[in-house]
């Protein structure tokens, strides 16, 4: 699947406010559900996995989280994205006893294991380019946000 196609205008939300990582995950999960991307039990499975294996990624000033779960809960591949008005705490993947203030959350729904790995790889490589993360954090327009993200995912693909 074309990675560009997984990024949807209607699954992307800028400058929303939530009080906790669970609230963020519930909101994004609901969006995936409304648009027919995930099966029943997806939300519970993501929350359960997050409690055992958290997905907060510490990058620097602007941090991200990539909650996900097993492919059996996914009906269609897509990613629900939110940029938060104020950061919420996620536990860190590398140091689960520590928390990180997260501003960008990507909730993944992916149907095929190979695709899962490829998409995760492209997405996290984008985070390695701090300029990209900064632009995603700062841009005022949703169109621009989507373009930066898609360009970044595609640029990395050409590299290979």
């Amino acid at each position: 699947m074309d990675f560009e196609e997984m990024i949807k205008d209607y699954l992307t939300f800028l400058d929303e406010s939530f009080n906790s990582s669970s609230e963020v995950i519930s909101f994004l999960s609901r969006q995936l559900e409304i648009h027919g991307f995930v099966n029943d039990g997806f939300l519970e499975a993501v929350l359960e996995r997050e409690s055992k294996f958290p997905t907060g990624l510490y990058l620097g000033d602007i941090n991200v989280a990539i909650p996900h779960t097993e492919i059996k809960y996914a009906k269609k591949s897509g990613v629900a994205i939110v940029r938060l008005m104020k950061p919420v705490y996620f536990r860190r993947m590398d140091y689960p006893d520590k928390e990180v203030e997260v501003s960008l959350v990507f909730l993944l729904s992916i149907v095929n294991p190979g695709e899962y790995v490829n998409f995760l790889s492209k997405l996290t490589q984008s985070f390695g380019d701090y300029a990209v993360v900064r632009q995603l954090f700062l841009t005022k327009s949703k169109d621009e946000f989507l373009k930066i993200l898609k360009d970044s995912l595609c640029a990395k693909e050409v590299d290979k």
Partner: protein
Amino acid sequence: MRRVKILVVCGTGIATSTVVSRKLEEKLSKEGFEVETRQCKASEVSANLEGVDIIVSTTPISGNVKVPIVRTLAFLTGVGEEDAIQEIIQKLGGDKS
């Protein structure tokens, strides 16, 4: 070329560790290593240690493991990748030949 066997560990031993394995193979082959990777979940490390020179993990590993461990997200996020490569080479003894 020195052969190294790396056990790559993440929470569930599926997606994240695959991303990290690919990156390690790419980066360490440029440093002159012949890399073999194996993946497992954090809770199954002790059963997967045979012949392993070093463990690279994105998540904590419990228990008493005698193989050197590098815990890093660098091969997932790209942040601090060079430092992490140097730490691995150093823990492998620094000798590539």
